[in-house]
Each structure stands twice: as C-alpha cells, then as structure tokens.
C-alpha cells in the first residue's frame, strides 16, 4: 500500500477558517469536542473574533460503547458557558470518522437546551461513516486504511500537527 501523505493541520485550519468566516455572525457559538476539537475551536474562536464565550464538550458520558469499554479514565468537564437555547452552534472536532462522537456530542448538547441549529466543522473527514452525519465545513478529506488513524497534537507554541498512528492488527 502506498504511504499516505499526512495532511498539514495548520494548512487545513486556515482553510477551515476561510470556509466558516462568511457564515458566522456575532451570535454564533463555537463548541469544541475534547481534546483535539477543543484546540481547533480555540483557534477558530480567536481567528473569527467571536464575542460569544467558547464551549467545550467531553462526550465520555454519552458514548454508545460504554457497555464495551467502560468509562474513559481521562474524562474532563464539559463547559457550556452560554444559554444555547435557539443558538446557532458550530460543533468542532478534529477527525470525522464513524459519526458516533458527533451523535454523542449532539445528545449531550440537547441536555443543555434546544439549539436553533448545529453545523459541524472538522479538520479532516476520513469517510467510514456508520451514521447519517455530514460536516458542513471540512478542512480536507483523506483516505486511511482501517488500522490507521490521525491523531491531532499541539506543541508548546500552540501549533497543531497530525500524526499518523498505525494500530497493530489484532493477533
């Protein structure tokens, strides 16, 4: 198999900002999914100069695989510091794959209120959807093998980078 080219996360972020900019207004609420999506959300929020406070979701309490894998030991607090009733929300994650994380995030959001609309923004869409979910804003689409994944990392200076992780095939 030909080695895939790992996309440049900073370049994708710049594209994402350009794609989102025309449709935001001062009431747009940005919510990032921990951990990678939260980093991207922070950058989007700053670049777009939004006045609304930034929100973060940890979807561990809403995952559909709790019965199989148990509770994520690294669970963080969700913080939605704004009333989301009727709000126009851009939900942000790093990589869109099966769609299960997005479903969990939407379920959690509705426990805070009834948003007016939710759009999805992701840095990379790798296909492989198991649920009827699509992103409105996408940095790039990439194709990966099943055993590969893209992990977002952030260095001390705040720069984002994708690492290609090869999971060992189960013996």
């Amino acid at each position, binding site marked *: 198999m030909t080695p895939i080219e790992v996309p440049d996360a900073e370049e994708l972020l710049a594209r994402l900002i350009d794609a989102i900019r025309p449709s935001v207004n001062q009431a747009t609420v940005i919510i990032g999914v921990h951990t990678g999506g939260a980093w991207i959300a922070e950058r989007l929020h700053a670049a777009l100069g939004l006045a609304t406070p930034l929100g973060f979701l940890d979807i561990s*309490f809403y995952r559909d695989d709790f019965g199989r894998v*148990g509770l994520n030991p690294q669970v963080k607090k969700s913080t939605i510091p704004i009333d989301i009733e009727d709000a126009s929300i851009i939900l942000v994650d790093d990589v869109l794959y099966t769609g299960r994380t997005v479903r969990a995030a939407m379920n959690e959001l509705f*426990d805070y209120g009834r948003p007016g609309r939710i759009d999805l923004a992701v840095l990379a869409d790798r296909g492989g959807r198991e649920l009827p979910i699509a992103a409105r804003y996408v940095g790039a689409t990439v194709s990966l093998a099943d055993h590969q994944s893209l992990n977002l990392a952030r260095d001390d200076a705040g720069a984002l980078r994708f690492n290609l992780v090869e999971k060992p095939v189960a013996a």
Partner: protein
Amino acid sequence: MARNPQLNANGELTHLLSIEGLPRPVIENILQTADAFASVGDREVKKVPLLRGKSVFNLFFENSTRTRTTFEIAAKRLSADVINLNINASSTAKGESLLDTVDNLAAMQADMFVVRHASSGAPYLIAQHLDRTGAKHIHVVNAGDGRHAHPTQGLLDMYTIRHYKKDFSNLTVAIVGDILHSRVARSDIHALTTLGVPEVRVIGPRTLLPSHVEGMGVRVFHDMAEGLRDADVVIMLRLQNERMRGALLPSAHEFFKSYGLTQEKLSRAKADAIVMHPGPMNRGVEIDSAVADGGQAVILPQVTFGIAVRMAVMSIVAGN
C-alpha cells in the same frame, strides 16, 4: 487468593468495598471523574445516559437517609432504574438469609447492589458469593458496613478537601471524636494516608479510640486544643450512641466540654481551616451550632459533592 477482591484482573475497580488497599491512581481517578460529574449537576437536564437500562438495587439492612438518598439521586442521574429495599421490613424479618436475598435479586436481573449492613464484611460476602455463583457482572458498592468501612463517604470527604485545599501534600487533618465506632474515620484515614497527607491526627478520649490506632499512620491526641493546633481540615464525627456498648462516656454534656467543637476550640486551627461532618450531626454534643452553621463549615457542600462522587463510583465499577 491474594488478589484484591475489588479489582479485576486488569487492576480496574469492579466493586467498591473499602478504601483500604486501593491504589492511589484508582482513588485519584474517582475524584477526577467526580469533577466531571459535578458539572452535570449545574445543567438544565441533570442526567447522563451512562447506566440506561441498568437496575441498581439499594440494599439497606440498616437505616440511612442521607446516604441512601444520595445513592438514589446518583443512580437516577446516571439514568439507571433504582429499586430501594427496606430489608428490615422485608424477607430477612421472615428468616431469609442474606445470600438467599441476594440470589433472588440477582434472578431479577440486578446490575448493581449498593449495600449497607450493620455487620462488617457483609458487602465482601455478597461480592464473593456473586463471584462464586457466576454472577460476576453484578457490581457491589459498600454504603457502610458495621464499624469497618464507608468508602464513598471517605471519597467524598477527599473530594471536599481537594475542592477547598487543592493539594494533599502539605495538609494537617484532624479527625475528632468517636473514632472507635466510626467506619467513616477508618475510610478517611486510609484515603488520607494513601493520598499522601503528611499529618493525620485523631483526637478523642481513650475509651473512643481503637487500640493500636497509631499503626494506621496517625498521631493520637487526647487534648483537643493541642490536637487542633494549625490544622487545615477538621473532621468531626457523630457520637454513635446506637453503637455504644457499656459505659464508654460519662455523659454527652461531659463529652461536649472536652471534645465538642466550639468557635473557641476551632481558633487553634488555621484561620482558613474547614470543618467537615459526615452527618447526621448531634448539635451540642460533638459540634456547637455556631460552628456547624458558621463560615468555616463545609458540611452541606459535602452532601452535594457526595452525589457526584457516587455517580463516579457507580459508573466506573459498572464499566469494568
């Protein structure tokens, strides 16, 4: 079997029976997870779907209001179905044995037992029995057994201390009163020493201190003023009249004079010391109303934190 019966083969928490023997990372993980659950309590919908479709049985062989209620709220906020059994008024009164009761509830497809029992070790007995009878998927959480342990109270006390003091590594914690009959004291001492608190003190009359309590890594004081000096945290215990056998004390009034927490005695502790109490309080016996209702008391926040801590414990064991 030398294996800790609370942990599975991967070292993950599958029952919560006692804080004794729990590795520090397991305790820290519970506190961390409770932090995330605490924010759920601030939302419009105070529920998450983690235990949807699971049945949690509250088996209270001994009375309790606060603990049973907070376990019930915690289970409901995890979306579990909760069944409360008041066992005093039920089958055991007709002569059914503890394990027969357990087998029947297991046959009703229970997923978790929250057990309070007057006999030390009852939750262990139930966990072992479930293991032996092939009902390993049922998790047991100890909600207080005899004088032995009250691990979720110990954990919520640690959560409270961490909330107000941030860090355990420089603290002096004084536990005051009826240590002998207190399962809370035992759980607190194990938790505090595991989390690295450098100075844990117990204060009480000789008759209400267990023999060899020093072996648990605590300093013993019989004089309250001396024991409270420069303390960061003061944990008051309830005088457990119902567990007293024989004449261990002259009178409640005498006890208050020597070991009741008044504003004057509290002034020996640090100015920013917090005062905790597991409840229910005997005002005028172990604690003066002025202190219980004063600015240093964090007794009601303890109750609120208890919900998040019990949600954390139940969801962690249910997932392992």
